[in-house]
């Protein structure tokens, strides 16, 4: 499908189609390997601070890869009630802390809204993996009676949505999406659909954490991890020396609101989610990458021309072939070196579903502060990646009104989102 036909296409099915409220972001919460809390993280990003280091949460010395992006300084007991501690994996504890920050930042009190007006749509790639590993170990080694009753939901992909919903009384339309790294954008798009159907507020985005042996071997088995032992040289998106990715944990949750409702309560607005599209790659045998199509469709959805895009937040795989494919997709849309491109995830590693929602948060802060955060590690883009990559230090002095965020999820998922100031 061409971008033009997407412009002509009705956007939503059903009776709600005539009303297209604008979806705006009014609150942001973050847990990232280079900063816990939105402010700490963004300050670190602008300083180009690397959050990648030797894995500490378990002994990885027997594994072929030993670097990760771990969220520093997170004390679960400071953020999670006692009753919830026994029934939650680390990923849910992080999600609860991040959701609270986002809601506080939005200044929104869901209790003041009608009962079903507010919901939660998150993305998750692994659910509560560490919890699941522990209970499976109990099952094999000791027997079924040693498995926690809370395993029934603590491992599950939807658990973060559920616990956030229960804690904050967000009883409106909710859900979970599982599309790996693309999920952070796919969830926000689903939240936007719920606003179009009548919800007034949705907590959305993604947080992932699976830095346990079971999660680690899943990465190892895929064979795309960086085996480098140097945190500053391990994850080098678009570099000729790119050698794989470093996994990390964390992500961002956003409060997405109907623009009118946000305006009515005098909320501060970071920007709007103006466009979105998702595509799926053909089978690996037939080859081809549909990321560029997702980007073109997202621009069309936003009614934005490529020359109106001021910055692109790249998916930044850190593998030669995938980097080339993304560089090609960007160049086809914008021309070679035709738009500033950045990859702040070079400081965090790839956070699965958390990665793309964190990039959305970065894009929104970029628009607010009129600064493009840098890509670190990579010293210059490879010759076959003809990008205007923002490297080393932040770029200022460019007017930033529109940002494009790209994401690819393992298994062929592509997503693109356009945010505007």
């Amino acid at each position, binding site marked *: 499908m061409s971008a033009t036909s997407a412009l002509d296409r009705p956007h939503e099915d059903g009776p709600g189609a005539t009303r297209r409220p604008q979806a705006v972001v009014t609150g942001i919460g973050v847990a990232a390997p280079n900063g816990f809390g939105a402010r700490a993280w963004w300050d670190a990003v602008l300083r180009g601070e690397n959050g990648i280091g030797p894995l500490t949460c378990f002994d990885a010395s027997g594994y072929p890869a030993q670097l990760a992006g771990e969220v520093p300084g997170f004390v679960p007991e400071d953020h999670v*009630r*006692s*009753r*919830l*501690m*026994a*029934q939650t994996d680390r990923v849910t504890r992080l999600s609860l802390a991040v959701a609270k920050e986002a809601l506080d930042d939005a200044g929104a009190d869901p209790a003041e809204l009608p009962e079903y007006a507010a919901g939660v749509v998150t993305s998750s790639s692994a659910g509560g993996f560490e919890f699941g590993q522990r209970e499976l170990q109990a099952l094999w080694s000791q027997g079924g*009676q*040693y498995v*926690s*009753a*809370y395993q*029934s939901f603590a491992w599950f992909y939807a658990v973060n949505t559920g616990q956030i919903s229960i804690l904050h009384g967000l009883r409106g339309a909710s859900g979970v999406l599982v599309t790996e790294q693309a999920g952070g954008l796919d969830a926000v798009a689903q939240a936007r659909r719920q606003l179009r159907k009548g919800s007034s507020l949705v907590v959305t985005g993604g947080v992932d954490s699976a830095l346990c042996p079971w999660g680690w071997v899943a990465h190892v088995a895929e064979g795309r991890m960086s085996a480098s032992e140097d945190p500053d040289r391990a994850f080098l998106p678009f570099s000729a020396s790119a050698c794989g990715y470093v996994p990390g944990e964390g992500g961002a949750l956003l409060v997405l609101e109907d623009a009118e409702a946000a305006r009515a309560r005098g909320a501060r607005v970071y920007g709007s989610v103006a466009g979105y599209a998702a595509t799926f790659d053909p089978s690996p045998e037939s080859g081809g990458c549909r990321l560029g199509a997702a980007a073109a469709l997202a621009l069309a959805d936003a009614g934005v021309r490529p020359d109106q895009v001021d910055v692109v937040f790249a998916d930044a795989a850190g593998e030669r072939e995938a980097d080339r494919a993304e560089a090609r997709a960007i160049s086809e849309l914008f021309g070679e070196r035709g738009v500033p491109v950045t990859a702040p995830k070079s400081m965090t590693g790839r956070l699965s579903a958390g990665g793309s929602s964190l990039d959305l948060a970065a894009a929104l802060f970029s628009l607010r502060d009129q600064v493009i955060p840098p890509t670190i590690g990579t010293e210059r883009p490879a010759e076959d990646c003809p990008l205007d990559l923002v490297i080393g230090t932040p770029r200022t002095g460019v007017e930033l009104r529109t940002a494009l965020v790209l994401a690819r999820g393992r298994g062929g998922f592509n997503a693109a989102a356009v945010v505007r100031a």
Partner: protein
Amino acid sequence: MTRFELTDLTVLLRESAGENEGVDLDGDIQDVSFAGLGYDSLAMLQTTGRVEREWGVLLDDEAVFEAETPRQYLELVNRALSERTAA
């Protein structure tokens, strides 16, 4: 014979399911409902798993569900303990 006491229960409740804010498990809770203490059926299932493992008894699921207060729950466990001793 060793009896299963209230303090045994509160230790296992805390470890299995945490403790609600505003609830004092060390207070006079014998006749306060588990719901009132902030424990749902899953919390009781989890706690019961610990009781069964650590005290070497098997409790009837239905009876656990019907034990609404610590007093009733203690009776249930102690009955199972004495039946085990008698057997």
